[in-house]
């Protein structure tokens, strides 16, 4: 009898706990939907203008208190020998690609977070540390981050990277669109330093207009494709280029927002508490089988 009541208590608590977790989980995924304004700020990166001076890399590190070499060292172009990706030591990097039509004018491509309109990382974050801000930035709360790295897996551009070197301080790093600077009405550090304004800061709608105008004015200079206009539901950062984007090592993406796909699967699984219910059905079954077994054991003896 005593045993029975304890079992009942456990049953009730587990069920209620599951219900709570399930409910909060659905709530979390729902919070993954974008909260940004209709016309967020953005940046247009013109890879035909970029000269690969890498001053943006230096300015970015300065703005984010990351150790950096002196600015003169960035003139050294040997950095382009290897293809680089942004990581915790450099939130943005510039890679250089051969220009088949003009040897002396290679294409330099800055890489950083695209700040998607419907960010997959926000959707995937199970603790709600990632958020899309009103001004377009996708930022995260280090205190909330548990280091699960779901955002790394979810990102269609493979941008968030993990700081492995401090095991006890799990931290995801990526470009934050200089959220702290833009709050104070400053320009993002990379935009401010760029000597040729290869990165133009402005309202996303204005940037789209500008990009279309440039393509229209110089059709021989640009491919008729604005990367980020439609990709994964649109991004705050957009690119213009003189050659196909896949040759500049950009992933080929559909126009469907990434969270749409992942959330459909996740929500499908989690609807009506299917996973917890089935898990507990399974465990209950095993328990029931074991109970029957233990009951029958003394009989056989």
């Amino acid at each position, binding site marked *: 009898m005593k045993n029975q009541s304890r079992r009942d208590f456990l049953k009730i608590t587990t069920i209620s706990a599951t219900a709570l977790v399930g409910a909060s989980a659905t709530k979390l995924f729902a919070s993954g939907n974008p909260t940004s304004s209709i016309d967020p700020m953005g940046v247009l990166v013109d890879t035909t203008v970029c*000269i690969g001076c890498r001053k943006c890399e230096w300015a970015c590190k300065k703005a984010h208190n990351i150790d950096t070499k002196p600015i003169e060292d960035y*003139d050294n172009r040997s950095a382009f020998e290897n293809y680089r990706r942004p990581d915790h030591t450099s939130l943005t990097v510039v890679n250089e690609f051969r220009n088949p039509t003009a040897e002396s004018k290679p294409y330099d491509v800055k890489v950083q977070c695209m700040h998607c309109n419907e960010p997959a990382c926000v959707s995937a974050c199970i603790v709600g540390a990632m958020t899309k801000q009103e001004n377009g930035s996708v930022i995260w709360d280090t205190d909330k981050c548990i280091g699960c790295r779901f955002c790394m897996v979810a990102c269609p551009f493979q941008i968030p990277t993990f700081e492995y070197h401090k095991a006890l301080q799990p931290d995801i790093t990526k470009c934050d669109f200089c959220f702290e600077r833009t709050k104070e009405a400053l320009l993002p550090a990379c935009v401010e330093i760029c000597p*040729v304004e290869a990165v133009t800061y402005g309202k996303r709608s204005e*940037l789209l207009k*500008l990009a279309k105008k440039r393509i229209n004015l110089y059709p021989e200079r640009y491919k008729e494709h604005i990367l980020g206009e439609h990709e994964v539901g649109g991004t705050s950062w957009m690119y213009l280029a003189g050659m196909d984007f896949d040759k500049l090592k950009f992933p080929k993406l559909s126009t469907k927002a990434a969270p749409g796909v992942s959330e459909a699967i996740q929500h499908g699984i989690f609807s009506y508490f299917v996973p917890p219910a089935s898990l507990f059905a399974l465990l209950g079954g095993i328990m029931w089988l074991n109970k029957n077994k233990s009951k029958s054991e003394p009989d056989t003896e």
Partner: protein
Amino acid sequence: MKIISMIIIILSTGLFAQEKPHFVTQELQCSTCHTCEVPTKNNPCVRECIREYLVSVKHSAKEAPENILINRFEKIENIYQPVHFTHQLHAEMSHLAGGCQTCHHYNPPGRILTCIECHETGRKREDISKPDLKAAYHRQCIDCHRGWSHEINCVSCHAMNEGKPSNIDTKPMPKTVHPEIKTPERMVINTEYANGKIVTFNHKEHVDLFGLECQSCHSQESCIKCHDKNPDKLKSKMVHETHENCASCHDTDNNCSSCHAQKEKPGFDHGQRTGWQLNKLHSKLSCSSCHQKKGVFTGLKSKCSNCHDSWSSENFDHAITGLRLDEIHLENECADCHIDDNFTKPSCGNCHDDIEYPDFMPGTLTK
């Protein structure tokens, strides 16, 4: 009523016509600036950034400002110091590339605009359709400089600031001129053409005699041609490119032997080619001073009056021939001594019976 409205229309057009519309003074095509056939006040359909087509003011590099100190962005905390831009030097050399409009790419009718008149100084701005001033400067400079240096070093134009107040000299810099470009007298080029491997190119002759300008052949070469730090990368001109340069005067499609031969060719010799040896005075002239019809070198007669039809005893300075006429002979008409248009040896027989040139001189020899 009709008459009144007609008068109003005529008067108003008269008023507006006082100032000549820009397309009259600029000799522009409407389509250079407007996208539609009939631009109206409400819908002017003006093209955006027409760039070089609009350059209307052309002046020589000597009239351009000499050196410009670009210190508009100067701040103590800046990483780099301002730049002294050798404007006139760049302007002088620009005729080998795209001309003044390489940089001054937008010029509505009137004086030449400076960069700041179109490009805003602040990066954070409302109108993002044009790059800001700093970007505009850098784009113009780097576009050429990276071509020949193959690197993008800030310090090749800027000095480092190093936290101290800028010590750049704000006084005008001394005039910088490009060192004189040494041109070859003649070049012997080995080609792959079997029927005439050797092309002798008389560079000096083409410039001094044939009167070609540098940019007639050396166009769009910019600084790279001479200043390339990595000459290996400089590809030699393709066959069709070389022929293109010569084809404006030579028939490169049909007459190969005019340039290609099995051995070196001597320079152009007027006497050998035409049978009329040029004398000292004429040999210094460029072809076009006699052969005034462009590209036509036949049809001139060896008679002096063919070209010198305006010369008479009153306006011709005879001393130029080496003989200064004395007072008596100055009164004569040319034909009194130079019978039958023969201007080499005069005949005295018209006035004198037993005197002959050169035993008797009608003046004093100056040479």
